[in-house]
C-alpha cells in the first residue's frame, strides 16, 4: 500500500524520469504542497498589489513621477508651517488640520486621481487580463472592492500623511503637555476628515476611470468630471455672491448670510460636499464652501449619494465583464 503510493508520487512528481536518471538541471515537474489561501487572502493580496501600483511601485520610473510630485506638493503646506514656526515668525499653526489649504488639496487630488485611478482599473481592462482573475477563486465583486480599498488607502496616504507632518511639525515647536494635547485633539478630526475624503473620492475616481480601457479616456473622464463640477460650483458661487442681496463680492462666512442658491451650488462638486459635511459635523476652520448651516443634512445626503452611486457603478462595471 505504502509502496504503491510512493511509486505514484514519484511518477507524478518527476514525470517520466526514474529517480536518479534525470539530467541534473531538469528536476521535472514539482507539485505544490504548500498552503493555498482562499478568497479573503487573495483579495488582500490584490489590494496590496493595487496600492503599490497607485504610487507606481513595481513599475518604471516614469510611473512614479506624478505620485511623487503630487505628494510633495500636498506636503508643502505642512513643511512651510514647520519652517515658519521654527523661525519664530508665527506663534501658532498657520495651516488648519481639518481644512488644510482646501483649494490646493482639491487641485492636487484631481491630478492624482485622474492620473492614478486608471493605473488601477483601466490597465486591466485594456490588457483583458480580467478573465484570469475571474477564473481564480475570487468572485466578481471582490475585484472592484479590493481596488476600492486600495485606492482609498492610497488617497488616505496622500491626504493624511501631510496632516500628520503638519502635526509633527507643530508639536516640535510648542511647549508643554497641554499644548501638545490641544494639538492632538485638533489633529484627530483633521485625520478623520482625510478618511472621509479618501473613502468618498476613491470609488468616484475608480468608477469614472473604469469606463474605458483606453488610458486617455479614463483619465479624461475623471479629470473632466472632478474639475468641471469643481469649477461649476466655484463659478456659480462667485456669481451668486457678487449679485446677491449683499452684493459685495466678499467671502461670507456666516451661514445666515449665505443665499440658498449658494448652498445648492455647493452640492454639485464632491469636494464642496465633503467640505460642507465637515462643517456640518462641527468643523470650524474656514473651508472651500460656506458653512451649510441648515442645509447640512442635504450635504450629508449628497455625500452618501456620491459614495453609494459610485460604488454601485464600480461593482456593476465588473459584473458585466466577459470571461472568454
Amino acid at each position: 500500500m505504502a509502496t504503491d503510493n510512493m511509486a505514484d508520487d514519484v511518477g507524478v512528481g518527476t514525470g517520466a524520469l526514474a529517480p536518479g536518471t534525470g539530467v541534473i538541471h531538469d528536476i521535472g515537474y514539482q507539485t505544490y504542497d504548500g498552503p493555498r489561501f482562499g478568497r479573503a487572502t487573495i483579495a488582500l493580496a490584490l489590494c496590496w498589489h493595487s496600492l503599490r501600483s497607485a504610487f507606481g511601485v513595481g513599475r518604471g520610473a516614469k510611473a512614479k513621477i506624478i505620485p511623487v510630485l503630487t505628494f510633495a506638493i500636498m506636503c508643502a503646506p505642512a513643511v512651510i508651517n514647520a519652517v515658519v514656526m521654527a523661525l519664530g515668525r508665527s506663534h501658532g499653526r498657520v495651516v488648519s488640520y481639518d481644512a488644510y489649504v482646501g483649494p490646493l488639496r482639491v487641485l492636487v487630488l484631481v491630478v492624482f486621481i485622474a492620473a492614478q485611478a486608471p493605473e488601477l482599473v483601466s490597465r486591466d481592462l485594456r490588457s483583458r487580463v480580467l478573465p484570469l482573475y475571474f477564473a481564480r477563486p475570487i468572485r466578481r465583486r471582490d475585484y472592484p472592492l479590493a481596488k476600492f480599498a486600495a485606492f482609498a488607502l492610497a488617497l488616505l496616504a496622500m491626504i493624511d500623511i501631510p496632516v500628520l507632518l503638519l502635526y509633527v511639525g507643530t508639536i516640535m515647536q510648542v511647549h508643554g503637555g497641554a499644548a501638545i494635547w490641544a494639538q492632538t485633539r485638533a489633529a484627530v478630526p483633521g485625520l478623520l476628515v482625510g478618511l472621509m475624503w479618501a473613502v468618498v473620492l476613491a470609488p468616484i475616481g475608480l468608477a469614472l476611470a473604469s469606463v474605458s480601457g483606453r488610458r486617455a479616456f479614463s483619465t479624461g473622464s475623471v479629470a473632466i468630471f472632478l474639475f468641471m463640477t469643481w469649477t461649476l460650483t466655484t463659478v456659480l458661487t462667485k456669481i451668486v455672491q457678487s449679485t446677491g442681496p449683499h452684493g459685495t463680492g466678499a467671502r461670507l462666512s456666516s451661514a445666515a448670510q449665505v443665499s440658498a442658491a449658494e448652498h445648492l451650488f455647493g452640492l454639485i462638486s464632491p469636494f464642496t460636499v465633503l467640505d460642507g459635511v465637515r462643517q456640518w459635523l462641527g468643523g470650524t476652520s474656514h473651508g472651500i464652501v460656506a458653512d451649510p448651516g441648515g442645509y447640512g443634512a442635504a450635504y450629508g445626503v449628497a455625500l452618501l449619494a456620491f459614495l453609494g452611486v459610485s460604488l454601485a457603478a464600480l461593482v456593476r462595471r465588473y459584473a458585466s465583464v466577459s470571461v472568454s
Partner: protein
Amino acid sequence: MTADQASQARAPAGADAPVIAATALTKRFGASITALDALTMAVGPGITGLVGANGAGKSTLIKILLGLLQPTSGTAAVLGLDTVAHGEQIRGLTGYMPEHDCLPPDVTATEFVTHMGRMSGMPPTAAKERAAESLRHVGLYEERYRQIGTYSTGMKQRVKLAQALTGDPRLLLLDEPTNGLDPAGRTAMLDLISRIGGEFGISVVVSSHLLGEVEQICDHLVAIAAGRLLRSATMSSFTQVSQVLAVEVEEGADLLGAELAARGVSVVRAERELVVLIAGDETFDAVRDAVARLGLPLIRMEQRRHRVEELFRADASIAGAALARVGFDASAGGHTTAARTAAADGH
C-alpha cells in the same frame, strides 16, 4: 505518510470521480438562444480535446465548468465538485488559459506570473518560485525578465500557459491554445500540452475548432455542435474519421470523382477539390492510378487536418461513410445519425 497525503492532494474528491462530468447540461440565454442542449458526458484523466465549430458552445461549457455561469438545467461537476456549489474550490484547482490576448504589455513575464500565482492563493515566496518554474517548463528562460510587450505571439501563448500552470492545478482548461501560431509554434505548443498531460500528470481539456490538430495529442475527444454532444469517445475511434486526402486537379474533377468511386474509394466533391477518405495505403495507389489513367493535370494532393464541421456535414456522403465506420449510430442516444448530423449542419 507524506506520499499518502500527496496523492490525497492530487485527487481531492476521490480518484474515482471523473475529471469532468455533465448531466443533461443545458444553458439558454433568453428564450431563443440555446448554447448548450442536454449535454451529457464524462471525461477521465488525461488530455481531452473539446472540438466544435465557433459558436458550438465550447466557451459556454468552459464558463459553466469554472462556475462562472449557472446552467439553466442539468448539472456539471469538475474533479467531483459541483460547479454551482463549489465554483470557488474548482477555480482554485483549475488553470484556465483564455483564447484571446490577456497579458499586460508593460510588466515582465516573471512579475506577471508571480502575481497570478498569488491570485491563485499562493504565499509570496511560493508564487515567485513557481512562476520561475512554470516559465521554465513552457520554455521561457532569460526572456522572462523582459517586458511581455516585446514578446512574439508564440512566447505570449507560453506565458498564458505558464500563468495557468503556476498554481499547480489538477485540471487545465485551454481555450484554442494554438490560435495565431505558425506551424512550428503550433507543433511546439501541442508538444508542450502533451508533456503537461503525460509527464506532469495534469488533466487537460483543449478546445479547438481544428480536429486534426488536437487529435495528435488527445486521449479522449468530445465533439459538440450547436450545443449538442456529437460524440464523446476515445481518440482511436475518431482518428480514422479525420484521415482524408484532398486532391485537386486543374480540370476533370468530376471525371476523377467518378473514376475513384468506380474503384471503390469514398470521395466527395468539395468546391474545387475532391476529398477522399483514406482507408489505407491502397487509397493513395487508387488516386495515383486514377489520375494517371485519366491523364489529368494534378495540382495538389494533401493529407489534411479535417475541420470538424466538415466532418459532420450531413450532405457530404463522406461524413456519413466516416461516421458509419466509427460506429456512429444510435447507441449513444435516441437520435439517428441523420438527425444528429442535420442538427450539426444547422449551425
